[in-house]
């Protein structure tokens, strides 16, 4: 089987040049827990660290002392937790980040008008891509604050890991779109360089669109965009700035994937995309693996279990043998899937993180995951 390079997490988080670590991956692979465990480990190894989580499980949030959305980092202070560095944590509040962005960047008096716009209510709550955009916005703020020497970022739980890169652009291109102007006043569409023959058809088409989504919505949208772009410099510029941040030398990407076909396929897409965009990929965290802990072949274990069953004694031993055979099969499957990934991406370092049998609910659990991330302390 293809042998992957080992992903050395400690070297990454100990390096003072590492400023931002972005944990990406499709939904349900354990990104948030991985981010929190990384941040805890970095703090215990002496760095002043903040972790930006997006939508943590309740128990995970509690284990970091986060009871509610705060939208500003809070220092993790728990009895008996005395890291060499500092650990700060926050949960992203999408709406508040958006409000803050508007307030911070518009002239006094103008902000209220923007916040009250009915169109803003839609953009800030139900646009696809807003969460991704705001996660990036918040990251930009944390970097600008300069109070932390390491920022670990969790990414929103999207179907595809790529959404995280694409959504901010998609959102900003809609919001900056000249189409709004076109649709609100098609007469002035000449700026589009539309050939004359099209113009009549175009007018009809724009009429069709405004018939469907409603003239009021378009008017609201147009008013909002004019006000916003004139004060905050436009969504596009901001999105471009965050994209630059992601390309800067202090930023590293980790792709988190469960050893499952879907998650690894998404991870593959993401790896290819990062290299296309020349964004620095550190490696793949193969999360929740099930390495076997006892060196005993499945055939032998199953034969012994059967002979025990036949004689009707040793039900406990027979159960132990069977669950070991199950685990071997699972381990083989996971290794096969990871080997397939490595064949496709031989240059990508990988670290396997053996699954904890239960969900993380405290600092100790996060610490164990941190040890496993660094390749130490695995049960084998």
């Amino acid at each position, binding site marked *: 089987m293809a042998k992957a390079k080992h992903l050395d997490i400690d070297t990454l988080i100990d390096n003072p040049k590492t400023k931002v670590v972005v944990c990406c991956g499709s939904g349900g692979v354990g990104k948030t827990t991985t981010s929190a465990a990384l941040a805890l480990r970095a703090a215990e190894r002496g760095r002043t660290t903040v972790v930006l989580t997006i939508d943590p499980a309740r128990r995970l949030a509690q284990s970091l002392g986060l009871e509610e959305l705060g939208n500003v980092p809070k220092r993790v202070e728990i009895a008996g937790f005395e890291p060499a560095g500092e650990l700060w944590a926050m949960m992203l509040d999408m709406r508040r980040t958006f409000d803050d962005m508007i307030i911070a960047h518009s002239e006094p008096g103008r902000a209220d008008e923007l916040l009250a716009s009915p169109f803003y209510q839609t953009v800030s709550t139900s646009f696809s891509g807003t969460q991704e955009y705001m996660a990036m916005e918040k990251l930009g703020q944390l970097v600008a604050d300069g109070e932390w020497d390491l920022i670990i970022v969790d990414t929103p739980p999207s179907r595809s890991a790529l959404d995280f890169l694409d959504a901010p652009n998609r959102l900003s291109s809609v919001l900056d779109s000249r189409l709004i102007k076109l649709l609100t006043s098609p007469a002035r569409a000449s700026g589009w360089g539309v050939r004359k023959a099209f113009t009549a058809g175009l007018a009809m*088409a724009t009429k069709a669109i405004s018939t*469907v989504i409603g003239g009021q919505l378009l008017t609201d949208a147009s008013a909002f965009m004019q006000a916003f772009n004139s004060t905050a410099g436009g969504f596009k510029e901001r999105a471009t700035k965050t994209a630059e941040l992601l390309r800067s030398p202090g930023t590293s990407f980790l792709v988190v994937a469960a050893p499952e076909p879907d998650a690894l396929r998404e991870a593959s897409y993401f790896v290819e995309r990062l290299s296309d965009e020349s964004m620095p990929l550190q490696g793949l965290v193969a999360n929740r693996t099930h390495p076997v802990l006892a060196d005993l072949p499945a055939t032998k274990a199953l034969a012994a279990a059967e002979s025990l069953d036949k004689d009707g004694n*040793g039900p406990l031993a027979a*159960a132990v043998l069977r669950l070991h055979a199950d685990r071997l099969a699972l381990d083989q499957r996971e290794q096969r899937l990871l080997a397939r990934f490595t064949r496709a991406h031989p240059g990508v370092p990988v670290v396997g993180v053996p699954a904890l049998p239960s969900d993380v609910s405290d600092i100790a659990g996060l610490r164990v995951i941190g040890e496993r991330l660094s390749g130490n302390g695995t049960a084998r």
Partner: protein
Amino acid sequence: MTTPLGDSGWTKELRRARLHFVTGKGGTGKTTVAASLGLALASGGRRVLLVEVEGRQGIAQLFDTEPMPYGERHLVSAPDGGELCALHIDAEAALLEYFEMFYNLGFAGRTLRRMGAIEFATTLAPGLRDVLLTGKIKECVSRRESDGRHTYDHVVVDSPPTGRVVKFLDVTRALSDITKSGPIRGQAEGVVKLLHSPETAVHLVTLLEEMPIRETLEAIDELAKAKLRPGAVLINRVRPPRLPSRSVSAAADGRVNTSRVRSGLEAAGLELAPDVLDGLVAETVEHAIRIAAERAAMEQLGEANQPRIEIPDITEGVDVASLYEIADLLVEKGVR
């Protein structure tokens, strides 16, 4: 081995449904279950349409076929003479279809698409996208052949994940995004009626883990509030408990009777080195912790009082053949 909390089979009420939405948290295997349910419903000579709405070509990947265009096509044959068809709905294509139908745009429609105007419209009015998707689904459900029979006996939709599904189905609310009149509006009112009728069921795929269970319970709640019908809870990847149930809680606390394990192994002719024995015990403890957590999860699921179906784990990984296995099992549990 049916525990009081376990499998309840496919109920009479579920059999009235012709439109099946399949949702679940990311990573729970919703596409696999949707495809298997489609095969199960198609078996015995029926015709079923499997619909995908999120543009990620999960069906094509699962069945190992070419990416699907926007159009219905034969996917595979189902057991005993059935047929499973597939449709990948693209909201933008659906919107263009409307424009073509009602405004006769022709060339200008395509120009609009090239300019990104169609994407723009569907993004600007998020509700519009959902109305278009559910509108197309409704059209498939109600379509009839010239002999008056439904074109599809059932339609199964690989739906958005639990976090977004209620918004997706709550067409009434989405309508606030679009104008008060016009053809899309008119059709949407028919969609609302269908989605809230006994012909529609929203099934939830879950694993026996904390987060998926919590999201499932929340979704059931939200569905009920939106007056939509939660259907079956499909518990995916159920692994067999190997330990005798009386040993589980002690083992989960780390108490495994090592000497009893050793003597049992010796009786079977296995003399193992101490580290191998320790490894086996450690695996046993992990197994027991997981089983105990799964039991707790199952009990929590019991609160919801929805029909439950267990789908066993396929260790080798899911391929097309295993979809038929799961389908057979669903048929055995009464799916039709």
